[in-house]
């Protein structure tokens, strides 16, 4: 009997290669390729006056130097604005190489190609670029003041202003018995995968075709973009993702300047060209996220129930907006979490600054939204003197109110309509897991030992499985191997394992017969990409539907071969067999042979499908109308709208009464992502997300000087947590299946990071008895807060 794999902790098929050093990441390829290096702007805002390459020309091993003036055709146009929006009235994107002006430190100005990276950097160092300095706009305050402009033709530095509302929220706030106003700030961090970006391009002049490997989250869209930019027919371009060393959002942006320039140079030079991003480049020329300032007005009754919520916020989108308004749109909608806000209004400004551009980083605007809403809940609880969990409970959407329509438009252009979830049950589990009701006794005990502890919590709802679609292709080979392809990419999530589990179950084959490929346009051309916690929902559903259709086809062919009715057949362990009579069976490999009527017997198996081998109706064509040869099929999954996962985190912190050092003692997670394909993988995603949440709450920030220099652009200075900073994570699951897809799954990839800053702020506030309005928080900032608090309350 085939064991059902859906829901099992199946070990990963990806691991044996990766743990033995046999993974193949971008820089593990193309050892003989030419290598590129870039001259990048050292200034945040300047006009380019002159570029002098004469000194560089003597460098032995130099192959080419390119500036903006060399870019021909559409390569010289501005890079695409990937996600336009009607309110994005002043969208600006960079050129592949800076044209006349640079708008952030790190913007690419000159491309150097040489026989090795060492030589390319030697030459790059000898290129002289003369700049006329312009004043830099750094930080939200300067962007709002707009005394200086990032782009001359963008008044007020305002890329977009967007409003959504369900009614007159300010009137509702003013009419409520109680009113609070809060200013809440959160600073920049970044995805910061351990592997940066990288591109390897090979042009075949005989075949007039381009093969590009790139460390991306969307190979299919890079392919389309490259064809358009380079003026090539799409069918002459293929894009492959090798092993990708983490993405977390930054690699969904495309085409990066280097993704255009490296293939462009490979075509011009007729030789393979490679570029591997170094760590400093990743800091100053990829993307950041999170920096936002929020002003909240909230009205509520004496029980703490919301009557109206009015949020105004300012989003620092950096120098350009290639990814549109996705991050602030998500903040503005997902801020609501599991709560009913009463009347809601949100308005945001997306503002240009002379800093690295801002695009989604795991969570993508949700951590900010969650932080705002949860700070509001804590503030109401404090003001009313009600337990923090009780205030939340009173504002929850009830399970019987599902599906729940917020009356807003979500990031996919579809209604913000929650499909399912049981928030009171999630909270009850969390309280039990962390021991919420027993915490006061623990606090007293700690106090007696001279220790200061606090507890906090935060709740979130996450729209996952965003459309428009994903697809799958499955072919059963004649040896019984099941070859599965899906177009979206993978960056470490274990997609090959997870998708193989689904296919093995649906098709009725052993797990080890299934081979999954992701992110290779040679194998599957129609896809969107990996982001928004969408793979299990989208590709999982797509391969499930595909497997069902391939199974149906196998049953039809086997029914004919075994001379039985289709209804009497089942597929078990890779064999189609007659129910109740397992000895009468045919293995799927043999079915695959029969599915492809042949003239030539190139091997023993093939001989069984040749024209004289089997009796056949001489009046019927070997491949009937509507049939296709081969035991294979494709199908797509396209949901009406997103599915909404949810979760709640509780944190216990200890703060040092003298040094203000902050330590996370316990981190508890209750998580509901619908049905779980592989709980081990889901827990891994939560662990990683929590670590990034802790990093974002206590350590990580982009330190920009007022002149636009990024002061901490290295791992020495940008403090990503090590094992010594990350707590153990205690997890409990709740399973509320999604009614929207055939598997009942919801996304799980981003959830772990979302409530980190909110929950930790709540816990520090509880430990310290002072108000936290700015995250991340360092020990020295907490120390300063204590001093200010003492002054205010002598």
């Amino acid at each position, binding site marked *: 009997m085939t064991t059902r794999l859906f829901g099992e902790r199946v*070990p*990963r098929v*990806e*691991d*044996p*290669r*990766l*743990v*033995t*050093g*046999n*993974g*193949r*990441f971008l*820089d*593990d390829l193309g*050892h003989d390729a030419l290598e590129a290096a870039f001259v990048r702007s050292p200034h945040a805002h300047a006009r380019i006056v002159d570029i002098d390459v004469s000194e560089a020309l003597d460098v032995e091993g130099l192959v080419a130097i390119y500036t903006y003036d060399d870019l021909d055709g559409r390569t010289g146009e501005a890079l695409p604005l990937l996600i336009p929006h009607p309110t994005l009235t002043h969208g600006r994107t960079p050129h592949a190489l800076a044209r006349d002006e640079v708008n952030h430190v790190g913007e690419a100005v000159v491309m150097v190609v040489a026989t090795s990276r*060492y030589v390319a950097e030697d030459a790059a160092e000898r290129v002289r670029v003369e700049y006329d300095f312009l004043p830099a706009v750094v930080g939200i305050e300067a962007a709002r003041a707009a005394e200086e402009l990032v782009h001359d033709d963008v008044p007020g530095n305002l890329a977009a202003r967007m409003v959504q509302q369900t009614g007159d929220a300010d009137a509702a706030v003013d009419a409520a018995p109680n009113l609070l106003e809060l200013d809440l700030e959160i600073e920049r961090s970044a995805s*910061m*995968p*351990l*592997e940066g970006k990288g591109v390897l391009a090979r042009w075949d002049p005989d075949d007039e075709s381009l093969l590009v490997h790139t460390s991306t989250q969307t190979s299919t869209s890079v392919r389309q973009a490259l064809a358009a930019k380079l003026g090539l027919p799409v069918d002459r371009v293929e894009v492959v993702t090798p*092993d*990708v*060393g*983490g993405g*977390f959002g930054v690699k969904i942006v495309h085409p990066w300047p280097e993704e255009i320039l490296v293939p462009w140079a490979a075509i011009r030079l007729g030789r393979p060209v490679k570029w591997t991003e*170094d*760590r400093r480049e990743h800091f100053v020329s990829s993307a950041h996220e999170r920096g936002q300032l929020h002003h909240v007005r909230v009205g509520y009754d004496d029980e703490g129930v919301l009557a109206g919520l009015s949020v105004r916020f300012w989003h620092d989108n950096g120098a350009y907006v290639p990814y549109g308004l996705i991050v602030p749109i998500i903040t503005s909608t997902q801020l609501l979490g599991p709560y009913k806000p009463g009347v809601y209004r949100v308005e945001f400004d997306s503002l240009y600054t002379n800093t690295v551009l801002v695009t989604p980083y795991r969570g993508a605007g949700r951590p900010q939204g969650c932080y705002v809403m949860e700070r509001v809940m804590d503030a109401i609880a404090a003001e009313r003197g009600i337990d923090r969990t009780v205030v939340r409970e009173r504002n929850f959407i009830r399970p019987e109110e599902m599906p729940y329509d917020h009356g807003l438009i979500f990031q996919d252009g579809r209604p913000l309509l929650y499909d399912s979830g049981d928030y009171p049950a999630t909270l009850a589990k969390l309280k039990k897991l962390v021991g919420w009701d027993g915490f006061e006794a623990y606090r007293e005990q700690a106090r007696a030992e001279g220790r200061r502890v606090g507890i906090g919590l935060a709740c979130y709802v996450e729209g996952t499985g965003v459309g428009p679609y994903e697809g799958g292709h499955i072919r059963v080979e004649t040896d019984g191997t099941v070859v599965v392809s899906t177009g979206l990419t993978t*960056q*470490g*999530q*274990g997609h090959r394992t997870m998708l193989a589990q689904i296919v093995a179950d649906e098709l009725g084959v052993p797990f080890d017969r299934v081979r999954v490929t992701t992110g290779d346009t040679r194998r599957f051309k129609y896809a969107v990409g990996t982001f928004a916690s969408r793979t299990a929902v989208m590709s999982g559903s797509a391969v499930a539907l595909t497997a069902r259709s391939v199974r149906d086809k196998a049953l039809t062919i086997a029914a004919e071969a075994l001379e039985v009715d289709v209804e009497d057949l089942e597929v078990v362990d890779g064999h189609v067999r007659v129910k109740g009579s397992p000895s009468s069976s045919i293995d799927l490999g043999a079915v695959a042979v029969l599915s492809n009527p042949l003239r030539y017997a190139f091997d023993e198996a093939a001989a069984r499908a040749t024209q004289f081998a089997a009796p056949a109706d001489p009046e019927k064509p070997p491949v009937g109308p509507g049939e296709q040869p081969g035991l294979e099929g494709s199908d797509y999954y396209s949901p009406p709208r997103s599915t909404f996962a949810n979760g709640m985190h509780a944190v216990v912190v200890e703060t040092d009464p003298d040094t203000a050092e902050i330590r996370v003692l316990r981190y508890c997670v209750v998580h509901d992502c619908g049905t779980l394909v592989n709980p*081990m*993988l889901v*827990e*891994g995603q*939560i*662990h*990683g*997300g*929590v*670590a*990034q949440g802790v990093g974002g709450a206590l350590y990580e920030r982009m330190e920009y000087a007022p002149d636009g220099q990024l002061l901490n652009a*290295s*791992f*020495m200075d940008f403090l*990503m947590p*090590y*094992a*010594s900073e*990350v707590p*153990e*994570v205690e997890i409990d699951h709740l399973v509320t299946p999604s009614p929207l897809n055939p598997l009942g799954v919801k996304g799980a990839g981003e959830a*772990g990071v979302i409530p980190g800053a909110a929950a930790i702020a709540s816990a520090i506030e509880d430990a310290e008895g002072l108000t936290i309005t700015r995250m991340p928080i360092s020990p020295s900032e907490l120390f300063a807060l204590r001093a200010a608090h003492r002054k205010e309350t002598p």
Partner: protein
Amino acid sequence: MTTVPVSFSVNGTPYDLHVEPRRLLSDALRHDLRLTGTHVGCEHGVCGACTVLVDGDPVRSCLLFAVTLDGAEITTVEGCCAPSGGMGPVQQAFHECHALQCGFCTPGFVTTVTAYLCDHRDPTRAEAREAVSGNLCRCTGYVNIVSAVQRAAELTAGLTAEDRS
């Protein structure tokens, strides 16, 4: 630029190379010897992805010039495999415990843990955490890596017992 001869062994195989004095050990291993298991995550010795063992001690190969390694015995992640070529005990433990996701940082953890277990046979969870606290991982949150250190200790002890019997 002129090259300099240097001889060292990697995973038991002797190599005679001619490299520029400025060539990093990480680049020599990855691009000259094509042992690409050793990864470079930061180029300044902080992340630990490029960790290899030099005469048994973990070092950051992105901070060493290859020419300084004359006569050294170097072990990379490829050298941490079982004699059969399959997963060695530390690699097996990482697999069993789901201690890797993208796998980019993993080689540095495998070499670090391999060296650590040579003189720490039975680490507590806190000791295991401390042992890997010089390597960065952006995917796993370290929870399962800490478990893998302890599991690797068990598997190594089992192998040692097998050797004895």
